[in-house]
């Protein structure tokens, strides 16, 4: 049974990785903790839901439209709303929080508060994998889809970061913003583009989310703390760190829910988050946290 639980946790962790990849990237480049990240994810989930229930478009397909839209929203938001505020982390945290509740209010006004979820033809399909005569793993198709999609997304992000000029500019900005500026990187553009990429990735996260979980306008509050925990454990700003932390967390969460009561596991988990921040702010992966 534990193996089955752990495998499900691993698949869920893959989806977590997509959800948080943009958050950690945005932090790396801009030192902004985007509290609105989960709210944007819920927005994307709603778009996927509406497209599915209205036009019958599968969330995986609807990403084609949602992703560029979110990229654009992210770019504009960064330029018009975030960048004029400067670089005080406290102010920026509050500002993104304000964005989050604005989104919550708008979504709530439009769609009410009913919990939604996308139910496709393959929602409750299972792929059985026989490991041995007495152990058959049951892999839910939606989670498997999410897991595979997450690796595609992370792969694309990895390629952008490591094999393109833009990626070099982004990495340079993460490592030393001033020096990047001095070799001719247009920091303002890198920042707005990164925010765009961050939101584009969470748009994908949201579409996958709509297949697996149910949500309403207020759901983002439950998710943002989990997302923060993952990127902190992975080392703020570190993409590989976020992936590993997401997988570890997915498994740990699933296994601990079986071995402990469901209340103890989140306490332990926030305690680890707290202690990591205080005693090892560079996270698990050792990438330096940048205080801003």
């Amino acid at each position, binding site marked *: 049974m534990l193996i089955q639980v752990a495998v499900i946790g691993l698949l869920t962790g893959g989806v977590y990785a997509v959800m948080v990849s943009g958050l950690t990237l945005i932090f790396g480049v801009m030192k902004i903790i985007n509290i609105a990240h989960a709210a944007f994810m819920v927005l994307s989930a709603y778009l996927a839901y509406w497209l599915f229930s209205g036009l019958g478009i599968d969330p995986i397909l609807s990403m084609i439209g949602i992703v560029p839209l979110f990229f654009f929203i992210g770019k504009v938001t960064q330029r018009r709303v975030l960048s004029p505020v400067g670089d005080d982390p406290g102010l920026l945290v509050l500002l993104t929080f304000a964005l989050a509740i604005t989104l919550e209010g708008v979504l709530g006004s439009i769609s009410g508060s009913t*919990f939604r979820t996308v139910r496709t033809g393959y929602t409750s399909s299972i792929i059985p994998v026989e490991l041995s005569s007495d152990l058959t793993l049951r892999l839910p198709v939606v989670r498997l889809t999410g897991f595979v999609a997450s690796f595609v997304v992370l792969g694309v992000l990895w390629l952008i970061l490591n094999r393109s000029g833009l990626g070099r500019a982004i990495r340079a900005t993460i490592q030393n913003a001033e020096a990047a500026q001095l070799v001719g990187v247009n920091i303002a553009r890198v920042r707005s583009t990164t925010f765009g990429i961050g939101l584009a990735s969470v748009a994908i996260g949201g579409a996958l989310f709509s297949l697996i979980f149910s949500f309403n306008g207020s759901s983002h509050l439950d998710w943002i703390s989990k997302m923060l925990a993952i990127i902190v454990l992975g080392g703020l700003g570190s993409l590989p760190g976020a992936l590993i932390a997401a997988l570890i967390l997915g498994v740990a969460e699933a296994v601990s829910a079986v071995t402990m009561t469901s*209340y103890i596991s989140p306490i332990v988990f926030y305690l680890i988050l707290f202690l990591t921040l205080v005693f090892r702010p560079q996270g698990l992966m050792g990438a330096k946290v940048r205080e801003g």
Partner: protein
Amino acid sequence: MTSSIGRHRWLVALFVVLAIVGAACGSGDDTTTTAAGTSDTTVAATDTTEATTDTTEATTDTTEAMDSEPIVVGASLPLSGDKSEPGTAAKEGYEVWEAMINEAGGLLGRPVELVIVDNASDQNTASTDYEKLITVDEVDFVVGPFSSFLVIPTSEVAARYGYAFIEPAGGAPDVFNRGLTNLFFAQPAPGSEQADPFADYILSLPADQQPATFAIVSQDDPFTLGVMDRLKGFLTEAGVELVFDEVYAPETTDFSSIAIQVADLDPDLIVGGTVFDDSVAQIRAYQDAGYQPRAAFFTTGPSLPGPFREALGDATEGVFAAISWFPAAPGFQNAEFVAKYVEMFGGDEADIPEDAANAFTVGQVLAQGVENVGAVDNAALIEELHKGTYETIVGPLSFDEVGRPQGTFMVLQWQGGSFVITDPGDRRQADPIWPKPAW
């Protein structure tokens, strides 16, 4: 020079702000006071002064009376935040009641006006709202918010000012054990007794069909835990073995681990203490885990037909739940309520939320109580409500000394894409399916 201007401006700014705030609040104060027919603006009007004024108005003839001052009924509901789902449904229920009673000539010959405010699912805001409704807007009556969480502190506020407090959804044991005499719960039975008829049904099955084992997976919520406690007692006493008992935090969204554990133990009966979205998440997780119980019961969720069916499709088949009301129920004014609801909010009558019906019930109880008293008098109303029996869409209701209703819930089961009432026997629409088909 600079200094005086500087300080002066600052001070002016402060006073302007305070003045605006004062004016904004004060103006509402004045108009409502006039409306209530008293001229005393400095002291909060008491029920007696209002009552005398209103009694005189009530004697005027009906046609004229419909132009007279309305009877104002205030409520604070969770229209945003955690409980916004049922809160919005309750608002619709109240609005249907307002529309219907006004079409029928009003209350005591006066039109009824609802004042509904949003408390954002926050206890503190809810209490403050009732303070304001009672002491500033000076509404004639208040009706309850949604969920035991919000009912507990707000009923204290109403008690402090001697207002009757009829509420649609707050039936946890804590609601009644504080000994408040002004509170009335407008459902057939206290929330914790919701699953009693289901327990009766299970125990009425022939011995060879009865489940041998059961599992409880419940949200940490005063209402669901209350229901679970009673059900647990009934079943274990009758010899059904409880093999798994899990309480999860309200923010839990992923049930896969719990489901795999349940699947491993494979109990005959699964009972979910749910508030809606978690019922969907649980069932999906059980599907993924390959768990097929012989029967499944969820406290809330299956009773919200539209979203439940949309989220689960055919997996709904055979699921049990408790319900206080359903569209085809024979209760007083039920057909009119259903028609009016569809007229006002659209949709299919099968999609009318139970919470809307419970709010409408509150209106029915209030209206009959007030008509019996014959005046706007909360003290008399409280006394009356403890005595009388009221015809409602959930059947006749009467209340004990702490406002506990004296009836029973119904058991529903999903059959063929919608639900039917299977118990108690006198309201049965179809025989229960046992064991349930696979989901």
